[in-house]
């Protein structure tokens, strides 16, 4: 009982393992599944669990940002793309076997190198004391916001001159990224529209008809006859003499 009690003190560690397993497991899901829609769904779950890892690392703001912008925005865009193109034969496209063998060899070796590096450096794997109090105290939403607007509140006391005045914030990159986003999205929207008529239906497609219908309506001038009449209707034949009584 005691052993378990000790193990559980580090709930941080247990959640880490949970989220890491999800992230890597669904990553494999993305890799192995043939159906492109399933791949998209696994990717959503994998990125969701990485957001969980960010929360565990104390980066709350980035975690929420990842959930909202990355998963809620980018992947929705991706799924829209999947929906529009995943028709008939493009859903299940399996890769050829020799690609698989080559990819696993290269991937595996790269992974080994990286893992060795990760665990090699002694400084990185020093265990820390992770009690609850520690987690609570790291509130960075406000300093993060301020840092983006140029005032580095958290490095006020450092010795370096520029840093001392807390002026080494991220105002410049912040502005550049916003302008960059604007330009990119406008470009993407412009590029995404098709230039030519939809080939499948030539001029019978609905938009072409709509266009022609509108043109006809303007050209054909509707002569409005006024229908104001006084007397009652009766057969035209039994009126003998004058036209109107």
């Amino acid at each position, binding site marked *: 009982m005691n052993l378990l009690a000790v193990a559980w003190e580090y709930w941080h560690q247990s959640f880490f393992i949970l989220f890491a397993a999800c992230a890597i497991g669904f990553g494999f899901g993305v890799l192995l599944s043939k159906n492109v829609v399933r791949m998209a769904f696994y990717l959503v779950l994998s990125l969701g669990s990485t957001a969980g890892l960010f929360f565990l690392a104390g980066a709350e703001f980035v975690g929420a940002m990842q959930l909202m912008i990355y998963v809620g925005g980018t992947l929705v865009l991706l799924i829209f793309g999947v929906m529009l193109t995943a028709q008939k034969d493009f859903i299940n496209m399996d890769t050829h076997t020799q690609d698989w063998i080559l990819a696993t060899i290269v991937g595996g070796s790269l992974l080994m190198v990286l893992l060795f590096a990760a665990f090699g450096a002694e400084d990185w794997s020093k265990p820390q004391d992770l009690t609850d109090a520690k987690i609570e105290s790291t509130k960075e939403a406000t300093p993060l916001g301020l840092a983006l607007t140029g005032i580095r509140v958290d490095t006020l006391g450092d010795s370096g001159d520029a840093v001392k005045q807390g002026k080494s914030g991220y105002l410049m990159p912040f502005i550049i990224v916003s302008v960059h986003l604007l330009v990119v999205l406008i470009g993407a929207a412009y590029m995404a529209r098709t230039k030519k008529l939809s080939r499948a239906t030539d001029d019978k497609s609905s938009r072409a008809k709509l266009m022609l219908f509108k043109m006809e309506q303007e050209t054909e001038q509707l002569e409005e*006859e006024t*229908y104001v*009449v006084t*007397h*009652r*209707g*009766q*057969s*035209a*034949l*039994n*009126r*003998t003499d004058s*036209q109107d009584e």
Partner: protein
Amino acid sequence: MSDIPLVAELRTKFGEGIIDVNLEAIDEWVEVTPQVLVEVCQFLKQAEGFRFDMCNSITVVDYLHTDPKKAAKVDWDPHLEVVYHLSSIATKLTLVLKVKIPRWKNGVEGDLPTVPSVAQVWATADWHEREAYDLSGVNFLGHPNLKRILCPDDWEGHPLRKDYEMPMEYHGIRNR
């Protein structure tokens, strides 16, 4: 007879195209030959004092007595009558046009008699003529898409014909 302004105009314009004008009937009607029907309709639609711009209904009446006794008593021989009820919104006048056509095209059973279509004159005639073709079996020449409107497309026979026999079954469903 010819003192009625409309009839006078029609006579001058179409001569013997206008066969006769019946004034004693409850709704006076003018009988017209099929050949001259479309011009008459166009004229009636544009004529200054009349302007029959709405075609209320197109009906086909089948004159045929199936049992010989009654057939003998009647003075007309079997024929079809296509009746056009017109009315004018502008002048609030009404008119009935009639066209007499043989029951089958030059006597051959199964060939539908033909009447030129007035769908170009009034757009509403499009559906009325399709219904007349569907129920009474009259082939309207020049109709944009003449196919059955009320009965299923593969139905044989025209129900409103006097000599119409209900088919025994339709797609396996017993009718009688």
